[in-house]
């Protein structure tokens, strides 16, 4: 399910971090599935409540390993196979490769991690942002709940009511909200 699929959502806007967090906790407890939340800055508690984890550090480790292997293969091919030059009687497959290996591992690790981030987060130059509420990059916190087909009118009204009850200052509906 990606952001481009047509979907309809209910959102609640909060203006206080503590109220917002306790609302999230209560909603999780009552079994209302939170689709996404939007905050102006990272809140570690949000990740805990939603049970979010990322495998990016593992990916970065794999990228760095790929980096070191590729770089060594290149150095070995150029300096030992393709055009070996004996400098001061030293071996062509030399320990001083370690410096370039070190730097290129970092180089390749950074570039691939960055590309991975942009791909999984679906970010890119000029992408138009689908903003649920104008304040999410300023001082508002937004909880989004998807209105599924199975949901009856009463269900969505109950969600609206619950959001207000938990301290939302504004509740509304919005189509096409990303879940990434």
């Amino acid at each position, binding site marked *: 399910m990606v952001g481009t699929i047509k979907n309809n959502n209910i959102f609640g806007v909060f203006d206080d*971090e503590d109220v917002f967090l306790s609302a999230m906790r209560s909603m999780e407890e009552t079994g209302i599935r939170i689709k*996404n*939340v*939007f*905050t*102006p*800055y*990272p*809140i*570690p508690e949000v*990740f805990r409540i939603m049970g*979010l*984890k*990322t495998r*990016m*550090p593992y990916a*970065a480790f794999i990228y*760095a390993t790929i980096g070191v292997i590729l770089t060594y293969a*290149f*150095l070995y091919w*150029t*300096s030992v196979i*393709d*055009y070996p*030059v004996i400098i001061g009687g030293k071996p062509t497959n*030399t320990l001083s*490769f370690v*410096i*370039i290996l*070190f*730097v*290129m591992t*970092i*180089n390749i*690790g*950074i*570039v691939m*991690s*960055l590309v991975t*981030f942009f791909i*999984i*987060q*679906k*970010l*890119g*130059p*000029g*992408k138009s*942002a*689908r*903003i*649920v509420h*104008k*304040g*999410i*990059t*300023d*001082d508002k916190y937004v909880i989004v709940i998807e209105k599924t087909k199975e949901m009856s009118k009463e269900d969505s009204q109950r969600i609206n009511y619950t959001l207000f009850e938990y301290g939302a200052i504004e509740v509304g509906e919005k189509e096409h909200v*990303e879940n*990434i």
Partner: protein
Amino acid sequence: MYNTKVRGVLVEGNKSYADITRDIIEPIESKVPDWWKYAFIISIGALLFGVWASYITISEGIGTWGLNNSVAWGWGIINFVWWIGIGHAGTAFSIFLLIVRQKWRTSINRAAEAMTVFAVLCAGLFPLIHMGRIWMAFYIMPYPNTRGPIWVNFNSPLFWDVVAISTYLMASAVFWYVGMIPDFATIRDKTASKIRKAIYGFLSFGWVGSARGWLRFEALAMILGGLTAPLVISVHSIVAMDFATSVMPGWHTTVFPPYFVIGAIFSGFSMVLTLMIIIRTVYKYQSYVTDSHINAIAKILVFISLIMGTAYSTEIFIAWYSGSEYEYYTFFNNRISGDYTIAFYGMIICNAIIPQLFWFKKIRKNIILVFIISLFVNLGMWFERYVIVVTSLSKDYLPSNWSTYTPTVVEIGVYVGTLGLFICGVLLFLKFIPMIAIHEVKGILKPTSNGRYHKK
């Protein structure tokens, strides 16, 4: 994910989240002040001087510099090392303090990273110009060529420099830009101007601040930080090895790599101090860059200054203790006494003695004095590179080779040009980019201040 407890107030003045947004994007939204225009014109003038000097260097050759057979490296290399040193500021601040989870970096890191990017750009110009035939610069890249193909020398510190510095520039720029994406989104959503909305919208890459986005964003910051931190050490170690792997007296020492790395962080921190004092005064950001921030940087500087003093003493001690008469001559007859005493004592006084004043709380609290001392450190670090490059080269093993060195107007022009480029870059940064990381300051507001956080 990366939550740690902090002590003390980092954001003063009872700021709400909305206040932070408004305060930081205010310079972008309002017209440029007069001082900005004058400073910009002056920096463009300096830059044009540098363009002229570079044109003369490239069209006529390195003969227009004051170099000679003995002193084959002059201002070009001095300034290259100086700029690279300053370029260590952003990384030292953002990355080291990020991986050790120091919250006070948040108001300073953006400006420090900007400094890094501009300083490394300035540094990179010198080796390119120094090549003489700049249109042959691509020869330093390992690419399949028609000369064998013969490859570049992968065992040479000069090639390591190419790899390390270009990687460092890329890594710093990436780290800087990624950190700005959420702030560009803030400007996109706040600005009233349609043009700004379009530009910052484009630059913000469609950022919306979702929970998963923030989680991955923080993970990416840690990955970039973790990968770039060892790079900082390696970049300046490699610069040191440009010198240390030669057999020149005064250069051929094992202390050089750590000594250069510490020196670089020293000059970087002092440049951060210089710029942050200007920024907080001119833009009235005392609530974000508080006295305790300045105090913390001053404390770090006094510590690094002690290490610098130790490094200088170690060099002098080893020159005597090793029994090498060439080393002894270089240190005792060509630095402590001889033709270059001004640079040597300038270096000792500015780097090892003056920063010791930061032991006194009264001095750390006096912003004007702190500013002046930070300028002394910048100057002292320039002297240090001058001492290293020029004294060793001017009097080597063979007295018939001895010669003195004075820079020409062309060399000075190239240096002034890079200063112009740097200041020009910083001014554009102050105008068009939020100079304090908005989302990071918001992230630390709650645990580090006792005010209201929300506009009611």
